[in-house]
């Protein structure tokens, strides 16, 4: 018992140091002009990027060295597809390095790639930092969020394929190993989310979607909390939550039965003026449901990241090591809450999706 307590303590200290270390390197990265800008650092962290930046060695010296996993940039321009590695920008995101490929010139301005207009060799920025002589090409680069998404997919596939294999191997379908770890979660999604929200008879059809969404969101939420991955803020990215919300919306709309549409266009059981009054509200409701799903997940996860980063920024804003213990303690506290939030947000997204499916397939009960 004492040994395990000790181990746990050691692990906590390790996590804590990695935690502060990871964010510290992130904070330093945005200290280019000497003056620390917390907002820039936080936004840079929360938004997507073209490379997986791990850490910077010899910060601010001549032999400054960035340790980064370069990721492919894929652009579609008038000259067709253009691909190159993100390392060609040399970690520049101020538009200083111009990459010439396929007859076009590209710059990276705040982790957004712009294509310079013909004949231009230097990007010109307006007061707000937006380029004036460049356009945005169609960009399907494998950014760090896409990269982390694929990592999470690999983890999910490994986890659940091996779990499924465990069942095949066992004789009486008794779970063992990984299977005994994932089975309670799967049964939880089935018994606590799908069955009560959709109903005993129809829930089976939606189980694959609900399970996939639940674990996909949860794992990516957790990845967002691991500091060394340095800002894998996939589930805090509105593009990601939008796609999932749209999937829920499509499934709800497709599986909506007569009763569902009747409740939207001609609410039964209320007087006619009320029916006319309710119709637009209900029609708006169809769209606000997925929108609220999208914004809830995005805002919760992003807010968590911003709070932790803001607490860490205090050290650099006050330029004092004395603030560090307070910052780290608070960030740790928020971090622990965030661990709970990762699960809660995955749960809420899944529950509400199931609730909407249940509403769409509910039979009339009069």
């Amino acid at each position, binding site marked *: 018992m004492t040994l395990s307590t000790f181990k746990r303590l050691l692990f906590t200290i390790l996590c804590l140091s990695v935690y502060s270390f990871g964010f510290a390197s992130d904070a330093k990265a945005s200290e280019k002009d000497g003056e620390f800008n917390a907002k820039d650092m936080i936004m840079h962290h929360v938004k997507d990027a073209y490379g997986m930046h791990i850490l910077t060695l010899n910060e601010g010296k001549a032999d400054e060295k960035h340790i980064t996993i370069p990721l492919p940039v894929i652009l579609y321009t008038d000259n067709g597809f253009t691909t190159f590695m993100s390392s060609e920008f040399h970690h520049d995101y101020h538009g200083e390095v111009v990459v010439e490929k396929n007859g076009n010139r590209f710059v990276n301005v705040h982790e*957004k790639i712009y294509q310079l207009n013909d004949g231009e060799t230097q990007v010109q920025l307006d007061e707000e930092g937006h380029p004036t002589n460049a356009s945005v090409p169609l960009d399907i680069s494998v950014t760090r969020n*896409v990269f982390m998404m694929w990592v999470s997919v690999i983890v999910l596939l490994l986890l659940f*394929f091996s779990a499924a294999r465990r069942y095949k191997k066992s004789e009486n379908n008794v779970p063992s190993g990984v299977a005994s770890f994932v089975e309670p979660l799967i049964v939880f999604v089935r018994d606590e989310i799908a069955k009560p929200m959709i109903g005993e008879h129809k829930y089976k059809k939606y189980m694959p979607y609900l399970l996939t969404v639940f674990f996909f969101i949860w794992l990516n939420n957790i990845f967002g909390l691991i500091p060394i991955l340095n800002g894998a803020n996939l589930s805090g990215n509105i*593009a990601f939550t939008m796609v999932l919300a749209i999937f829920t919306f499509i499934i709800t709309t497709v599986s909506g039965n007569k009763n569902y549409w009747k409740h939207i266009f001609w609410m039964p059981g209320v007087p006619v003026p009320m029916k006319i009054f309710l119709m637009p509200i209900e029609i708006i409701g169809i769209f606000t449901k997925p929108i609220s799903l999208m914004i809830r997940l995005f805002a919760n996860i992003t807010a968590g990241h911003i709070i932790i980063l803001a607490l860490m920024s205090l050290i650099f804003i006050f330029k004092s090591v004395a603030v560090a213990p307070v910052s780290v303690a608070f960030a740790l506290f928020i971090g622990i809450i965030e661990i709970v939030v990762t699960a809660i947000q995955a749960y809420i997204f899944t529950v509400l999706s199931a609730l909407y499916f249940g509403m769409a397939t509910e039979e009339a009960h009069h």
Partner: protein
Amino acid sequence: MDLIKPGFGLVFWTVVTFIILLILLRKFAWKPILGAVSEREEGIKEALASAENARKEMENLKADNERILQEARTERESMLKEAREIKEKTIARAETEAQERANKIIEKAQAAIESEKKAAMAELKNHVADLSIEIAEKVVRAELSNKDRQLGLVEDMLDETKLN
């Protein structure tokens, strides 16, 4: 502002990745896992149901046994009762028969006594008549000789012959 503008690249890759993930997991993970879990649950449910059935059968059996036992008991009871009734009836009949016979015997005896008595009375009457005639003869004879003698004679006669 940039924060809430979905980037096309990420949307594209998320759609592609999510659909592939959904298809792969659905086919190779959720189906076997959910199938195994529900199969096992079915098995447990079945086992429980069969146990319940066995228990019910056992109970039925027990109830049957109880019923049969009860029936046997009531049968025995009724048989005993019947036997007792028969016994009582037999005894009662025997008693009445005995009584009747005794009554008859007594009646016969009384009748016999009565007839004996009558016969005895008749004989006595005859006897008295004979005696009376004898006395009358003797009286008549004595009368003829002496008056005193006659009286004395009657006295003697009466002393001699006493009605028994």
